[in-house]
């Protein structure tokens, strides 16, 4: 039976060679050659030029801040949801991840509408004679957009790992004299760490590589590394440089994955 089954992997094997491995090899090929096809490291080294480095640094900064904010917002929420009595069959959780099913662009578009100079929030503020809020087209708007778009990806894994914690373990800690803080830091937090870690990867990577959020909420004034790559392909037409920067981006993704696997050595986290 096993022998029979092995052959069944063939279609997927061929598929992944054709549409995953070969395309990635092409990115590497373009990234490591120049326009004439000769080998060069120029496109990789290009990251050290000021404008690319700035874009990468800003991306790292904004995505790190967003990820941290997501954890800070999501963890208490997941804990509350986990204990809530009204949360039958995870219905309440569903409410909090429902916005995820809204089209990603529409969600971001909604914030544009809210934040604009004459947008909804400012109309309300001016009706109340309050000072206006001018964060559209600034890095703050981009952070907001990232947190908003990716928060559900943080809530869900944390909630899952929290809900897996055996109540008896918590009770046992209490019986043995641990106070609330101790129970949290010694029992709940370590046990829910895999969820946090998997949440971090799910938020950090898309935030690091986005070009849509910065485009829609940044007024094209803020260049993230994703924007640079996108523009190299769609506007400046320098695929070699775009691929080279993609390789850099992949290195950062791999680093973040490795860090999370090391931290998550119990292997209990979701298989991301």
């Amino acid at each position, binding site marked *: 039976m096993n022998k029979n089954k092995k052959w069944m992997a063939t279609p997927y094997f061929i598929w992944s060679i054709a549409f995953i491995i070969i395309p990635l090899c092409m990115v590497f090929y373009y990234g490591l050659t120049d326009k004439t096809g000769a080998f060069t490291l120029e496109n990789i080294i290009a990251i050290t030029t000021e404008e*690319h480095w700035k874009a990468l640094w800003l991306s790292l900064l904004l995505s790190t801040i967003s990820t941290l904010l997501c954890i800070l917002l999501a963890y208490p929420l997941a804990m509350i949801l986990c204990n809530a009595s009204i949360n039958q069959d995870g219905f309440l959780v569903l409410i909090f991840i429902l916005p995820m099913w809204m089209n990603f662009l529409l969600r971001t578009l909604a914030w544009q509408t809210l934040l604009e*100079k004459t947008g909804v929030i400012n109309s309300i503020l001016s009706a109340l004679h309050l000072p206006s809020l001018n964060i559209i087209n600034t890095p703050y708007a981009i952070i907001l957009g990232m947190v908003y778009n990716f928060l559900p990806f943080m809530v869900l894994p944390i909630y899952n790992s929290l809900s897996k914690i055996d109540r008896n373990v918590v009770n046992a800690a209490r019986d043995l004299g641990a106070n609330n803080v101790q129970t949290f830091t010694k029992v709940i937090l370590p046990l829910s760490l895999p969820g946090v870690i998997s949440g971090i990867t799910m938020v950090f990577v898309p935030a690091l590589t986005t070009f849509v959020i910065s485009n829609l909420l940044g007024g*094209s004034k803020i*260049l993230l590394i994703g924007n640079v790559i996108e*523009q190299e392909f769609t506007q400046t037409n320098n695929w070699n440089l775009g691929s080279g920067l993609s390789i850099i981006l992949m290195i950062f993704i791999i680093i973040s994955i490795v860090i999370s696997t090391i931290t998550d050595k119990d292997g209990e986290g979701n298989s991301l």
Partner: protein
Amino acid sequence: MKKLMITALLVTISISSLMGCGKSNTPENGQVIVYNWGEYIDPDVITQFEEETGIKVVYDEFETNEIMYPKIEAGASDYDVICPSDYMIQKMIDNDLLSEINFDNIPNVKNIGDQYFQQSKEFDAENKYSIPYCWGTVGILYNKTMVTEPVDSWSILWDEQYKDNILMQDSVRDAFMVALKLNGYSMNTTNPHELQAAKDALIKQKPLVQAYVVDQVRDKMIGNEAALGVIYSGEAIYTQRENSNLEYVIPKEGTNVWIDSWVIPKDSKNKENAEAFINFMCREDIALKNFEYITYSTPNDAAHDLIEDEDIKNSPIAFPTLSDFEGLETFQYLGEDADEMYNQLWKEVKSE
């Protein structure tokens, strides 16, 4: 093993039937794939063309010349008709991406004023590849309620008091044009010092800019989101119609006079349909319809004569007398190295 075969079969059947579907949609007279600027045609005109000719129009839009070019060069999309601007047409001719238009198939070309073909010679030396569709200038659109002083120079875009109230064009050549003209240089310069100065000016301006936009400038100005915006003259009439507080000026330092023309790429698979489409666009009633919808200046003299509203017919915005202005230029393709330099400097502005 059996299941594998069934699966493979299913996949092949469904994929092939899908591809079949794609083809069977094509009507008797084939199709024409049009690649045009956003909001640059009256949608009714497309329907009318389809009804009259039986040719299906597949319509696609681009935001800037720079976004359009890689798609054509990659050759992965078989567009039949494209509407790039002057310098981009020159670049496409230089890189052998365009095919010569058979003017015998486009009798309506007689409607296009001769001076526009003369002007086109700057980028299409023998008038073999392009037929003008729209033309205009680039200027400043300002909101009279927010800007009280007279606007006559690009320098107002560097005025601190309009911080966060300025909209700049998000395309490399247009943005640099403003900065180069401000400093009194040619907008076709390849002199690194002049470009560097322009870059510094743009960086200096960046904190004052609310956003870099392309088509959005129109809605933002109508919605009173900003006080000043760099805009194509064609949008001026439309925006004034929607918001009477808006005023368009051509700055005294001079500006860009551009022509957007129809061209047929080498890869076109439906060249005759493409020519039929261009011919249709040159028909006076169609050109008029388009003019009334998009309000971009038409080079179609016959259509110009048909405009009923005298104010618009003689509008100095839509149909300016170019000899009244100084410092007018048309973009030229400056070669690969210059392109790279512009892009590099623009990226430095954007990442600041």
